[in-house]
Structure formats: structure tokens, C-alpha cells
């Protein structure tokens, strides 16, 4: 009876990361062909279509960013690079192209430097949410296996291993918490309009505090009535219409 339960659970575990990548392969290959044959508009349409179909891949966003750079649309390019960064944070090509795109903008605003929490949990920003979860999965499984072994054999080594893995498990869960905190609270937006006036309030009649240009990276701090409150690193704050910003 217990064996059957074990096997069922194992099968369930194995089926969690099920993907449907094969459905998108041919479409991705076609979009890549458009790009390599310099049909950038068609390539962009194909990548966007894949995105709309539900393909959530760091490399899709990266290729889409490249395509927009070729089309001279710096704002959408940076937006897609930022999206890609959440999924493939350690990709060097992505970082290089993001820097290149930022240099093409008028405001040249670099992404925010890590705050104290991100400095302490330095590995969290280098791992995507899924990588953080997978790491926690592995540690979780190891912990329960070692706990079972210790339950049976009760040796000092297993006791030490149990304690160490338990500490790692806590760390892994905390990392997921920190990652979720950044994913939900630290939202970065990219200005998509050529020029946008940052207003002092939720209305176009308010005074213009400063202007931002296409591709400018901003931190989103609030959203109300179709307006978004944005903040720059230098603590300059103001409101811009939601449709002028890509999130």
C-alpha cells in the first residue's frame, strides 16, 4: 500500500515542470528566420504572437528586444530586455544588449542599484524565481530524505547533515520570499512614448515637473485612475499616463 503511494507521489513530482515547448518550436524557428533575413517587422510580429499565445521565455523576450532595437524602437526593446532579465538574469548577451539600448536613449537611466536586502541576498537577483523554487525543491527533498534516514539509523553524521540541510532549507524559503517581494513590489517600467511629461498630480492640467523620453527606466510606486506614479533614483517623483509606460 505504502509503496503505491510512494510511486504515485514520485510520478506527481516528476510531472510538475511539464512544459509545452514543442508546440512553440516551429513558430520560434520561423520568427528567428525572419530576423536573420532582416525582416524585422515580421520577426517582431511573430515573436509578439508567440508571447500572446502564452510562451513565457527569457530568450523570446531577448530576441524580441533585439528585433525592436533593429526597428529603432528603443522603449519596447528595453521593456523586453527587462522582462527577459527576470527569467534569464545571468545571460551576458542580454546584459550587454540592455546596456547598449540604454546608451541609445536620451535619458540614459541605468537600472536601480541593489538595495540593502538585495545586497544581503545577493544570489536571489542572480537567480530567476523558478531557479529559486527549483533550488528549494531540491533542498526540501534532500532534507526529508535525510530526516527519514536519520529516523532509521540515528547516527551523528546524519544528525549534522539534517541540521545543515534544514538551515539551507530555511535559506531557500527565505530566498523565495525575497524574490517574490521584489517581483511584486519593485516594479520597473519603461517609457514607451517619445516624450512624456511627468506631472505633479493625476491630471494633465497639473504642472510638469520634468520630462522623460523613450526608453527611460522608472520605478513604479503607485497606480490610480489610469495614471502611474513613477520615481527616479534621484527621488524625483511624479505621475504619467499609464498608456505611455510599458510594464
Amino acid at each position, binding site marked *: 500500500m505504502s509503496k503505491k503511494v510512494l510511486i504515485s507521489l514520485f510520478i506527481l513530482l516528476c510531472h510538475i515542470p511539464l512544459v509545452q515547448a514543442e508546440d512553440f518550436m516551429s513558430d520560434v524557428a520561423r520568427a528567428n528566420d525572419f530576423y536573420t533575413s532582416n525582416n524585422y517587422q515580421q520577426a517582431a510580429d511573430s515573436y509578439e504572437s508567440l508571447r500572446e499565445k502564452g510562451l513565457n*521565455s527569457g530568450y523570446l523576450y531577448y530576441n524580441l528586444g533585439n528585433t525592436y532595437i533593429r526597428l529603432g524602437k528603443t522603449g519596447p526593446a528595453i521593456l523586453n530586455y527587462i522582462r527577459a532579465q527576470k527569467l534569464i538574469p545571468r545571460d551576458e548577451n542580454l546584459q550587454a544588449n540592455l546596456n547598449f539600448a540604454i546608451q541609445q536613449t536620451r535619458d540614459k537611466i541605468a537600472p536601480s542599484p541593489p538595495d540593502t536586502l538585495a545586497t544581503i541576498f545577493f544570489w536571489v537577483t542572480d537567480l530567476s524565481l523558478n531557479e529559486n523554487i527549483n533550488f528549494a525543491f531540491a533542498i526540501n527533498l534532500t532534507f526529508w530524505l535525510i530526516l527519514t534516514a536519520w529516523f532509521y539509523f540515528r547516527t551523528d553524521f546524519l544528525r549534522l547533515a539534517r541540521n545543515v540541510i534544514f538551515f539551507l532549507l530555511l535559506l531557500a524559503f527565505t530566498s523565495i520570499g525575497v524574490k517574490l517581494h521584489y517581483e511584486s513590489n519593485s516594479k520597473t517600467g519603461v517609457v514607451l512614448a517619445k516624450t512624456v511629461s511627468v506631472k505633479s498630480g493625476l491630471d494633465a492640467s497639473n504642472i510638469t515637473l520634468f520630462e522623460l523620453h523613450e526608453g527611460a527606466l522608472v520605478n513604479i510606486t503607485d497606480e490610480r485612475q489610469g495614471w502611474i506614479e513613477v520615481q527616479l533614483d534621484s527621488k524625483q517623483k511624479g505621475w504619467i499616463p499609464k498608456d505611455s509606460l510599458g510594464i
Partner: protein
Amino acid sequence: MGLSLPAFAEDIQVLATVDRNQITLEDSLQLSITIQGTQNTPPPELPSLPDFRVTSAGTSSSTQIINFKRSVSITHKYRLTPMNTGQFKIGLARIRANGKIYATQPITVVVKKTTAQNQPADKSVFIETNVSKKIAYVGEQLIYSFKLFHRIEAKNLDLSMPFGASHFQKEDLGKAKSYQNLINGIQYQVQEISIALFPIKAGKAEIPAAMLDLDIYHRTRSNRRGFFNDPFFGQGIRAEHKVLRSKPLSVEILALPEKGKPLDFKNIIGQFNIQANLGKKDLEVGDTTTLTITVSGKGNIRGVTFPEPNLKHQFKDYPDQPEFKQTVTANQIMGQKTFKFALVPLQSGAVTLPAFTLSYFNPEVRDYQQIKTQPIALSIHPSSAEETLNHVQSNSINNILTKPEIEILAKDILPIHTQLNDFQNISSKIGTSTLIGFVSPALLFVIAAIFIRQQKRLTTDVAFYRNQKAYKTASQKLKNLARSQNSESKEFVSELSEILREYIGDKLNMQGKAITAAEVEHKLKESNYQANAANNTRKLLEKCEALQYTPVSSGNNLELLNESHDLIKTLEKKS
């Protein structure tokens, strides 16, 4: 001499007084503002006094009790030093007290020029300023000196010595000197301070008057013999505040002549010497030697610079930071500036280092002069560790001569990603499956823990072991019995009865063979088996016992066997 003003309020009075109202430019007067009736007031607001320099001279307060009546006052004192001659009015000073404003009366003061009888020879204290040259060139060093002569005690000196910053650059020449000097047979104590001035533009330049504030102490003799009738105790000291002013000085500054000006002239003015020294003159390729250029002399030596020597790729040179030392000798700034170059020969052979030249203007001869170092010859031998050195050398030469730098022609993005296997759909949300993934190892652990615990109990707890194994053992025995050929014999029934008893013995952890049917029912009920099941068990055992002692077989032993099997099942389920 004092002027008073009736106060606006009955209890508070303010009073402004001066210690004298006719003074010379060398004197200062003391303005006292007394507030009677209170001591808790902010300082008075003084009127604008553009013709005086105002310094605070302290505050004093007093309390008096006369006929049991207490009166208090506070006096604010100011020293007023006149800046010009003429008749001046000290305006209203305002005092805020008890929410009201009180004002003093204006006071008129007359400031006269220094009287003619105060000639230096007659004075007990006087000052003197002078400049080393009345005509000088731009950049030439001038010495501006201030001297205080006094033959009585002078204290609290406060010197203001402007030098005309729009015409000169100043350089300090150290601390003040103190010495004695005889003038017309009178010995004076002299305090002298000097600064070096460097004219910065041509034209007539004026050095403004220097001004010295000081207190001098006159010894006076009293007619009264005083205490102990001793002349020593009749002697008194009277302090006097003085302001001494020098006369402004004028200097004519000449521009440097254009005629004969060398091309490499860099506004260096004075008299200089130059010297060159080389550390090692006999060395190998790759060795290091130090070339030292020393410029010394009088003038603005700090500004001397040399370009890097042109060594025509025969040497690699590493210039050091120049060292500058300044000395003041006989009120003249003397200096020495040292330039050092580390030279590393790159080629062997006899080499002569080029001379270093310095062009400067000499104000003494009113002309430009040029000095240069002697050429230095040195012989360079091929390196004794040639192979290694050549290798290093060739690299260093390449580094020096070609300075390879990658020229960035353009910037572009890196290519798209084409590995199709990497385009996997990633769910970025934490869903039920994720939670199941985290919880299931814990569930597995619980199951495994129960299993392990049971296994351990089976090896240590006999009663538990018998209980767990009872059904299996009894079932097996019943199957074996069913397969036996003599199902109608009495032994069959006897064995069936024994299997049942052993099963119950295992379940209840007791000796099963010796137990009676009535005891079985009782024990089963004690162990919380249902009464019905216990009753059926007793009946079945009694039936078996009856059949054992019946002479003829009933012929339905197999039915009894099935009944026994069903009973065990029932008991197992309800245990």
C-alpha cells in the same frame, strides 16, 4: 563729558558716554552705554559708524543697595578707532527692555590729525614701513617690512598690514623678529615683520597704510608717598590704547622688456644657477640611472619647469615629482627646485645627454639671461643577460612606441538566441502543483516513519508481533488443512480447533492451546471485541470440541473450516 538721556520709563534709564570727545587719529575712544534699572537686556543696537572701527571692550554690571533700595545697572563698552579726521556724530543706540525701546542721545566727536610734536624721535612708540625698491619689474621680488619701535611696554598688538592684492602676490617670510636699535641715542625695542611681494602687473602700485592697534603702559610717579612711605609703592602704571598708522607707499612697476626676450622664457625672474648630475654613467641596456637637474637661486623659483628631455628613443624616461625647498636668507626668498628623471637605456653605445636650459630675466642687470647644464656623456653596454632582456625590451619598446589601442569603430547589439530547446515556457507563478511538490516529501516522510516504527516494534514487542502475524499464520494453516485428505477425521476437527485457539492466543498474547471456549469468550470481550463475535467464537470452539468426542463424523467438517475462516476474518476486522 557724559551725556545722559531721561528714560521713557520711570524705572529704566539708559546713558551713553564717551571717555573723551576730541582725539587724534592715533587715539581711540571708549563708548559706554549704561542701562540702569535692569540687567536682563540684549546688547544695544549700535548706530552705523562708518568712520570708526568698532570693537567690543567688555561688559560690566553693578548692584547697589542704599537705604534698603536696590538699584542695578549694566554697562556695555565699545572701543571706537577713528579711520578719518573730522567731526563725527555717534548716532542713537537702541536698547530693548521690558518690551519697550529706549534710545541714547547722539554724541559729537572731533578727530584731528596727529599733532606735529609727535615726531618719531620724541615718541615712546612709533611704526615705520618700507619697501626694498621703489622701481621694480613685474615678477621681481620686493621685500615689504613693517617695524614697531617702542621704549615703553606695549601689549595687545593687532596689526593690519594690507599689501595691495590687486598689484602684488604675497609670500610670507616667517615670524616677526625682535631686536634693539639706537635712534638719536635712545634705545628702542624693535619688532619687525616682512613679507615678499611679487608685482603682477605694470604701472604705479600703492601699498596701503599699515595700521597697528596696541595698548601702551606709562609708568607714572605719584606725589603721595603712600603705603610704607616708600617711593616704590608711589609708582603707578597708566594704560593707553593707541592706533598707529604708517604712510602709504608707492612702487613703480615696469613691464619686462620685449627686446631680447627668449622664446623659452616662462616669467622666471631673479638670479639662478643650474646643475645636472647623473647617477651612473657606465651602465648596461635595461639598467636604471637617475638624472638630477637642480635649479637654485633668488626669485620665483617655484615656477621653474622643464619639459621631458628629448632622448630620441634612446632612453625610456620616468619623470619624478619635482621637489621644492624654500629658505629665507637676509629677507630674501631663496629656493632650490630639483627635477629627477629615471632613465632606462634602450640601445647600447656612447650617448651624450642634451643640455637643459633655463631662460630668466635678471632685474639686477635689467636683461634676459640663459643658463644651461653641461652635456653629460655616458656609455651603454649591451646587456649581459641579453636574451631575456631583449625579450622584455622588445615588448617594452613596442609598448612605448606603438601603444596599441583598439579603436572602437562602432557598437552593435549581440545576436539573437537560436537554441530552440531553450525556448521553454516557464510558469512564473506559484500554484497548487508547486505546493504539492513541497508537501509531498513531508507526506512520504510520515509514511516512511510509520513503516519504520512498525518494523522496529515487530522486532521488540512480542505481543505486537503475534497480533500482527496471527491472521497470516492462521490463514496459512487453514489452507493447509483444507488441502489434507482426511477432512472427515476427528484429527481434522482437533487441528481446526487448535488453529482457532492459537489464533486467539496470538491476538490476545496468551497460550492458546490451553484455553477453554468459555475463557475465549470472556477474554475477547475483555479485549473490546464485539459480544456477538466473541459469542460466535465460543460456539464454534464448542462445536469443534463436541465433534472431537462424537463417535461418528458429521460429514460437514469442510463447512466448519469455512466457518472458521469467516470467523477469523470477522475477528481480524474488528480487532
